[in-house]
């Protein structure tokens, strides 16, 4: 069983992160980056599936893929330390600003050469929150797919997944191989690499893939502006010492007649 995990490296948003008005995005030049949280759940889910298949018949490989400039190698290395077997770095600065559809086109090429049984990726990215890459890739690669899964197990024909719906409802879906699923939080707790894992990761392969400029897809969306999200109605902020704040809170609770 070969599982591809697409892992995004996302910028950390801090209260002092500057915005880049022309790009309609945050200024990435000084940002610190982390692996996308949902993608790590996808990686862990992939590892649990291959741990099981390796025990059963010795097969099973998790290949982690990330597109972006040189810095995304850090995210790939973390994934190799956590337990991915091999990594592919789709190298280029252009991927930073690509929308989900353009990235899905790039990743389809990777799917064509790697021929995975299963693709797992996070439900959404912590930065763009688009929740689109996975299902778009499934459409382009012609895979069965399910989004927002909180459980997965291998079956004879493919995978049985549980999708989380709204208000505590779930839906069980059988996917034929090859399949793609996007992973929701709560599915697992991501393992911490041991020192041994970290050392072992240094020997793992990171292949670099550079696409010819002519083959690079273009985004179908354009960002016009970015700003702090607006308020419905401004909250009254309490100020003062802890005691002063507490007495104002108590007065408010009194007024609301909840005491």
């Amino acid at each position: 069983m070969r599982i591809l995990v697409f892992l995004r490296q996302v910028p950390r948003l801090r209260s002092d992160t500057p915005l880049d008005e022309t790009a309609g995005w945050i200024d990435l030049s000084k940002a610190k980056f982390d692996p996308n949280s949902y993608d790590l759940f996808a990686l862990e889910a992939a590892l649990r599936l291959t741990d099981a298949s390796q025990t059963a018949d010795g097969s099973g490989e998790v290949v982690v893929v990330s597109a972006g400039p040189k810095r995304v190698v850090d995210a790939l290395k973390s994934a190799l330390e956590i337990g991915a077997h091999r990594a592919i770095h789709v190298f280029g600065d252009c991927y930073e600003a690509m929308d989900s559809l353009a990235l899905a086109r790039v990743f389809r090429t990777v799917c064509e050469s790697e021929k995975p049984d299963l693709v797992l990726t996070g439900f959404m990215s912590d930065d763009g929150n688009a929740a689109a890459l996975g299902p778009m890739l499934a459409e382009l690669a012609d895979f069965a797919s399910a989004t927002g899964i909180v459980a997965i197990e291998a079956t004879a024909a493919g995978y049985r997944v549980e999708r989380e719906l709204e208000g505590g409802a779930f839906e069980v879906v059988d996917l034929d191989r090859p399949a793609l699923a996007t992973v929701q939080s709560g599915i697992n707790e991501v393992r911490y690499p041991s020192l041994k894992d970290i050392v072992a990761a240094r020997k793992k392969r990171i292949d670099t893939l550079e696409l010819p400029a002519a083959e690079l897809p273009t985004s179908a969306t354009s960002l016009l502006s970015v700003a702090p999200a607006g308020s419905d109605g401004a909250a009254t902020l309490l100020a003062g010492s802890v005691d002063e704040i507490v007495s104002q809170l108590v007065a408010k609770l009194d007024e609301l007649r909840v005491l």
Partner: protein
Amino acid sequence: MAAVLVITELVAGKLRDESFELVALAERLAVAHGDEVVSLVIGAGISAAGQTLAKRTSGRVLLADDSRLGDYGLENYRAVARAALERVDARFVLMSATPIGWDLAPRLAAGLDVAYIGSATALECGGGDAKAVFTRRVFGGKLETRVAAPAGRAVVTFDGGAASATQGPAQRSDGGVVEELSFSLPSLARARFVERRSSDGAGVDLTKADVIVSGGRGVGDAAKFAEVIVPLADALGAAVGASRPVVDAGWLPRAHQVGSSGQVVKPKLYVACGISGAVQHLAGMKNAQYIVAINRDARAPIYQVADLGVVADLHEILPALTQALSKRAAGG
């Protein structure tokens, strides 16, 4: 004539409120571009829903009524959507950002090779500039971007509340036009619906609570949650709520989760402690009558909906508040 296609959604045989909001949004897009609005209803036994919808739109309603469409299945619903897209030249396809919307809409966009704009919260269109612009929240609701589809075609999902459902045209007395859509479903689905399950809630019904004290990831860990959130809830006679990461990490059972994938609550008072206020959390509590937020980040989106805020360390404020309340209860 080009069209704006609305793919509506049913819950227990009834159209979702969000579907009416979509129709209102579609009417605005259609007017700006001189297009017609076409709404699609997919399900089993849905003619009543189709009639209801026809009264709320200026355009046509297409019905895909088939016993195999009662439960959502990606390939079946996609086949129906494609049949509708063959029948109308859709400039925009609108869906709601729901489990069906986020499963199907990006696939439709990729299949059509058009832009996808997910979880939009507002629409700007009209005026001299014919290009529609969509607002969407990013970074968990902290920032807002304005996005356009330069080629003029897109599949868009909207969050609930992006429009008022009553913004559409007045109720029509003539009942509008309802047409049957002809389609064929794939004989072999590669994604098969097996069953639907619901968690039993484990006896925690937050929807009936007058006061809820909720804690988020900012509380720190399970021990601190028990140390600062639970005593405050006790002092207030309140129910205990939580954001998703709290239940993901097992600090509390899932039944305490507030939000789009947890419980939707409307208490008199909601106290959010160490909760950033991501869209999915807000969806579960923004209609509380009064919201107090305690979060040390003044830019946290929870302050977008809060009435009263305390920008400070919750570990300083909450124990002091709990103590003040206990003293008061003891008559001191």
